[in-house]
Structure formats: C-alpha cells, structure tokens
C-alpha cells in the first residue's frame, strides 16, 4: 500500500505492507533511527512520536494510519541549528543517561508543553508516566521539563511583551 506523510516538515512516500508499524516505517524506510523500540506491548514509550501534534506510541500505529498526516520525531526538534527548549532542558538538568528512552520522553514533553505551558510537577509526572526510563530515576527528567517550560514561557513573554497588560 502507498503511504504519503509529512515527517518533520518534509513530504515522504513509501510502498508498505498493510501490517507495517509506523515505528518501522520511520526507522527502516525513512531511516530516522532516533525513534526507538523498547517493548512489544505499548508499555515503554521509547517509540513516542507526534502524529498531527499528539503523542502516540508509534509501535501501536500502522504506517497506513499515518497516511496523509503529519509526523514529528526527535530529529525534527532542532530548528536551524537551534536546539528545542526541551532538548536544552534534558541536557542542562541531566535528564538522560543511556539516552535510549530520551527521544520518546522528549516528544511526550513537547506535546505536554504545547497544551500546558506551565505544568505542575504532578502534571509533568502524569504526562510522562507512559514513558519508562530505567536509568535516571525521573527526578531530573521532571526538572528538565520544568527548565524547558520556563525557557519557553520567557521566550514567549519576550516576543509579545506588554500585549497582555494593554488588553
């Protein structure tokens, strides 16, 4: 079957078996190996990508289901050589060790911060509870997301300075 999708801003097409999983399309056909596989039961979240902006575990989505839609992976986070605030946060707060869960963890974080710019610690913990990490003990991952949240809000405040005050 033919699938066409937009991945990290680029349009891509591929001929696939109907049973091909999205994660394998991304990794094997499109050669974006940043998205990882950690389980076969939709439990670990290592394969998390954004499908039309919403986090999905790409090991549980068929490639054909993504046809005509937009996919974002870890490779698309850095823009014009500038790291995404979430990427900054993870390295600044030591939110990764082996790095295997990290792409999925970051994609979940990006989606969280898109819908909630200032999440509480509990909201962060809830948001990433479908992403397992065996290395870090989560504390620094929470800090990483808090760090990203703060930088993103600061950047936004700088862009649209006094509008809120005037309105």
């Amino acid at each position, binding site marked *: 079957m033919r699938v066409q999708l937009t991945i990290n801003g680029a349009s891509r097409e591929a001929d696939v078996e109907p049973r091909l999983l999205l994660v394998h399309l991304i*990794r094997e056909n499109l050669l974006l*190996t940043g998205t990882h596989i950690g389980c076969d039961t939709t*439990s670990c979240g290592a394969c998390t990508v954004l499908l039309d902006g919403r986090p999905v575990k790409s090991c549980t989505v068929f490639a054909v289901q993504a046809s005509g839609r937009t996919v974002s992976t870890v490779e698309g986070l850095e823009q014009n050589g500038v790291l995404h605030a979430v990427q900054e946060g993870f390295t600044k707060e030591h939110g990764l060790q082996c790095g295997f869960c990290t792409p999925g963890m970051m994609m979940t974080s990006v989606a969280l911060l898109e819908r909630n710019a200032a999440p509480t610690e509990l909201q962060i913990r809830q948001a990433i*509870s479908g992403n*397992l990490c*065996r290395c870090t003990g989560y504390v620094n991952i929470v800090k990483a997301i808090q760090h990203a949240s703060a930088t993103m809000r600061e950047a936004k405040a700088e862009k649209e300075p006094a509008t809120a005050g005037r309105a």
Partner: protein
Amino acid sequence: MAVEIGGIGHSVARKEDARFIRGRGNYVDDVKLPGMVYLDIVRSPYAHARILKIDTSKALAIPGVLAVITGKDLVPLKLEWMPTLMGDKQMVLPTDTVMYQAQEVAAVVATERYIAADGVAAVEVEYEPLPVVVDPIKALLPDAPVIREDRAQKNNHIWHWETGDRAGTDKAFAAADVVVKQDIYIPRIVVASIETCGMVAKFDKVEGHLTVWMTTQAPHAIRTVIALVAGHLGLSEQKIRVISPDIGGGFGGKVPVYPGYVLAIGASVLTGLPVKWIEDRSENIQADSFARDYHITAELASKKDGTMKALRVKTIADHGAFDAAANPSKFPAGLFGVITGSYPFEKAFVEVDGVYTNKPPGGIAYRCSFRVTEAAFAIERLVDILALELKRDPAELRMQNFIPPQAFPYKTPLGWEYDSGNYGAALKLAMDKIGYAQLRKEQAEKRSRGELMGIGISSFTEIVGAGPSKHFDILGIKMFDSAEIRVHPTGKALVRLGVKSQGQGHETTFAQIVAEELGLPVGDIKVEEGDTDTAPYGLGTYASRSTPVAGAATAMAARKIREKGRLIAAHLLEASPDDIEWKDYKYQVKGVPAKSKTMAEVAFAAYTNHPQGMEAGLEAVDYYDPPNLTFPFGSYICVVDIDKGTGEIKVRRFYAVDDCGTIINPMIVEGQIHGGLTMGLAPALYEEINYDKDGNIQGGTLMDYLMPTSMETPSWETGKTTTPSPHHPIGAKGVGESATVGAPAAIANAVVDALAHLGVRHIDIPITPWKVQKILREKGVAE
C-alpha cells in the same frame, strides 16, 4: 583556571548528550548493512520437555525465509553448547531436551524482520512434556526430577560454598544473650534495560573475518570468548572485531553471552550475509538477565546491651537450568561474603548452595556487584529485627555497633579488607537532613491516632572495583582494566578505554580525570570505548568497576605522560628535570612561576623539538591491577505512609547519603544515585518474576512486570560525605550500584517499622499492597 580545565569535582555537562538529544545515537538496532538479513527465534512453550520433532518445511516454504537453524544443524559445527562464565555449559539450541520456558529451540533467517517472524510462527515443534521443578528447595529433595542429565548429575545440587569460621560462630551463638533469626526470600527479578539485547554479525568469508555490533558491557572479554568457542571454525582472536556502540542501559544484563548472539554469528557464517538479531521485550523478560532468587536464613547473635557478636547465614541460590552467573570465578556466590556489612562481628559463617531448576539461568547482578544487594538486604533487615527484639531505636543501635573510622583498613571475619569508611558520619548526616528525631515524634503521634507511618534505615557497605587479579578472573582472564592516552601535537588528546559505558557518562568523566592530571581543557579530550580493534584490552563495565579500575588506569597513564612531559619541559626551559614541578596545571621551574610550559606546548615539542635520544610522541598505556577492592558506603532513610484501606505504600521521603570517595563529576554521580535508588525501589515494592508449578512465567512482558514509572518514583533527596579510598590514585570508589544495593532494605525496614507495633517483624519483598492489606486484615486494623 580550574573551571576552564573542568577537572575533578566539576559538574561538567555531558559530552555524549549532544548526539542523544538529537536522535543521533548509534545503538545496535540502528546499524544497517547492505544485504543484511534478520534472525528471529522459536522458543519453547514448556519448562521441561523432550523435543520429538522439528518440522521446518512450512517455514522454509515462505518466500524470503532463507534458513531455519536447529540444534542438530549446530552439532557438526560443535556450537550446540557454549561455556558459561561459571564453568558450566549452556545450550545454544537443544538437540533433544528444553529446560525452561522461552528457551531457544530454533532460529529463522529471512530477508525481512516480519518474514522472519512469520517463519517462527510456521516452525512446527512436537514436544513431550517432562516433570518440572521450579522451587529450588524442592529441587534438592531426593525424588526431584534431575534436570541436568547431560552433566551426569545425580541430583540438582550445583555447588556448596562456605566462608568464615563455622565452629567459632556456632560457639559464639551458643554463648550469646540474644539471637534473632529470619528467613528472607529475595525473589527473581529482571534487569530490563529499555534497550533489549541484539547483535549485527557480519562474517567475511574471503578474509575469514567476523565483525559484530552487539549490546555488550565487556567487548574484549566477549571477543576472547568467541575465539575460545569458535576457534575451531577458524575464528581466531585477530579475526574478530567486537563493537559495542551506544548501549541503552546494561545493569549487568549485557555481560553474559545469550544464545541469540551465537545464533546471529552462526547464521552469518552459514549464509555469508550480515545478520541482525534484536530480541523483543517479552523475550528479554522471559529468557535473560535474571537476578537474585536467594532463599536466605540469617541469624544474628548479640549481647543484651546490643553489641553484635556473630552472624550465621545459610542460603539456597536458584541458578536456573544452567549455572551462568556473572561472577568472579573463585567466588561461586560472588561477593555475598560482604554480608557482615558495616558492623565488626567477631565471628561469622556463611554457606551457599547453588541449585538447578527449570528456569532460565539466573545470577545476573541487576545493578549490583555480584550478590551484594542480597547481602546488604539481609544484614540491614537483621539489624532492624534485633532492634525490635531489644526495643532499641534502630539508628542508635547502628551507631553503637558501626566499625569506627579509626579501625580502617578493617579486616572482616569473612576475609575482606575494607579500605576506608566513616559510617557514623553518613548516618548522622542523613538523620539531621531528614529530621529523624522529629519524624519519630510524628510517628508516635500518628500511631496513637491509629495511622500507619514507618521510618526505615539502611547503612550499607558496598564492595566494588573488581578486582585485584590475584582474586578475580572471568574464565581465567584476570580482572584489571586499561587506558591508553595519546596527546596530539596541538595539545588535544584521545583516550581509549577497556570499559564500556551504557549510560554512565564515561565520555565526560574520564575526560575530566585526564583534564585534571594533564591540565588540558576537558573539551579537548575525546574518549572512545567499545571497539576491540582500537581500545586496549579491558574487562568491561559492570559491578561499578569503571571508576575504581579504569579510572585508576586513566590517572596512571596520564601520570606517565606527565612524567615524560616533565623531561620535555626541562629541555624547553633549559632546566634540570629535578627543578621542574607540576603546579597550577603547568610545568614550572621550581620557585620561578614565570618560567613555565603548558601541556599543549610540551605536546607540540614532543613531536617537533624533543630532547635528543628521547622517543618522539606523547602517549601512554596503563593496565591497572588494583591492590584491593573499594568499599563505598552510605546511609539511607526512608519514610513511608500506609493506607489502611488499600494497603498502598507511599514513599513520602527518601534521603540518601552516599560516600563514594572522591567525586569526579557531582552531577553525574547524583544522576547515578537517582537511577540506582529507583532500581532499588523497584524490587522492594514492585518487581518480581514468578512461575507457576509447571514453570510457566507469570508476567513476562512490561504489561505485567511492574517497573516504576514517574508516578511511583519519589523525589529522591541526596547528600554526601567524602572518605577517599587510600589505595586508589585519585581516591575514587565507584557509585553506580550503591543505591540499588542500599535502598531495598531502607524501604522494607520502613514498611515493617510502620507495622511493627502490630507484631510484624518481616515481610518478603516486593511488599505489595495485597501483602500489606492481608496483614492489616489479619491484625484487624484494615479499614
């Protein structure tokens, strides 16, 4: 100056993060070679069965299936069995009998991953089930089915190991005022790093050369093992290259050789094509990296005033169907002998019996130095039980008994020499930070209101840094480690190591050691590991041995360079070498700071203007053989609240004081402690692998193997004391596993403490809400 260098003690940001946060890591499953084919494995549904027939015809008829490999196909190659690390042998594929559920039975090679899986489903195997034994205590009964008939075993007993003074200990117990005794079961758990195991094997038929990319913590040892096992096929050591690329967590589970690796190599030799094998998570949980499974009976003898006198421990260790434990070979029960912990017992005696059962091979360490977690758990539980018996505060009882700081180096009754320690300081700091006295008051108040709150302490002593080669080896290969440093003409350096990071941040930490020793900025130092064609021979990363052993090798190699540099500096400064000193990260003429040379200047001269008669270049290698192990320690305090309705345990606070000697990168060390604590929380409250009586694994996927998520994991609080190791060149001790070793006892002690007034003395881990609720119901306090 020091800040620019980024040497020891600085929280330098990790170099390796640059690729990981961009999705540019290179893990084994990311390796893709032209013409590569895929291998998948047929596994046994039975825990013990004779194989009557394997019909591969339907699988072979599937377009794209290239081969199906069975045990019989491996016989002519003499590859159907492989040696284990413990002098036993393990099946690669069975020729007639399977011995545990999920054991490898056949392998399918196909052009695509999905076709290989189709092939697996199409292989038809006929089994005749045999009697199963999964309980090691029953396995020792005279009428138990004998599992290892191949070894001409008459029973399922593997070995008996004992250490200490049996008669003296018995005497001390007979004379003791107080004896406490406890049966403790530490269940089977599985490492479950988020990356599963895998390999890409590429055999070049023309050159007879094998290259493998594999998930291994010990690439050099693996290369030697491959040469020893497959040498008869022409695979001698110089024709094997093992590459351990980025590894997604190891925790001990990526030390052994699993049959899948051998099959991938065999398939590449047979097909002449590069072969990829990546195991599924369910295969990973069902077939490899099992730890613990220790049935312990522990007794402690003390005086009425609480002075501990003697310790006696008997253990049955379930090793599954093959004794494949990762251990230094002289110690079949690993470092379990450190069970006297932080206390100066006069007498101790420990015995362990290894037993075969119809389970996968056990004895992986799960982030622990060879059975130390079991030891720490048993002693720290026993101390609390003694405190309960004597109606003493557990903190105070520990303080009374600790080996005092002035007693180090301290020789234990089981023969280990602890290098340095200050146990009281660590416990005191933890008590102050968490507000111990206040918490005890709060607990008393809550208890009077019928609420359940507990405080648990664990003051553990770890034993890491394997090891002095006089005591430690793997299959006869002595345990040392290595570092090779090359300083290039422009003052940049390349460091290559025999260890292999799986997330511990070696690329940063080891660069910091070199930065400190050579005065080169940490950003100018590149660290490489995991390629046997380029790295010096080392025994790998596990049992927290990287910093204690390879860290020492790195410092020693750097010091060799510094010494050669001193001669070059003397030549450049026209001074006598005796007048040159290393100060403020530079060579200086003694007393004349203005006359100095940096390492970069010296490096350039080493290639352009070195003294006549001296070899050019600035390089050094060191193979470090530690004089002793190192003994990091710590005191953890855990506070739990228990819900009387659901039996749920909430870890309200957890304060961890660790002492791992000199700290190279505080940020990385803290990260290691957080991760270790989470892997200590896991078996205490959640993780366990169970089998039914037929040997069926209960919960062999991540759906039912409960790994802590962000919701269960508390906000760890950490602190430190610093007691350097006197024999390590930079005083570092290793820390990666301390928290996993120390945490379970603190948590279990806290839960038992919350229930102690109801007459509870011990609960086996994992302490699940169900177990707690059952107790609450029995005691009539459940809500």
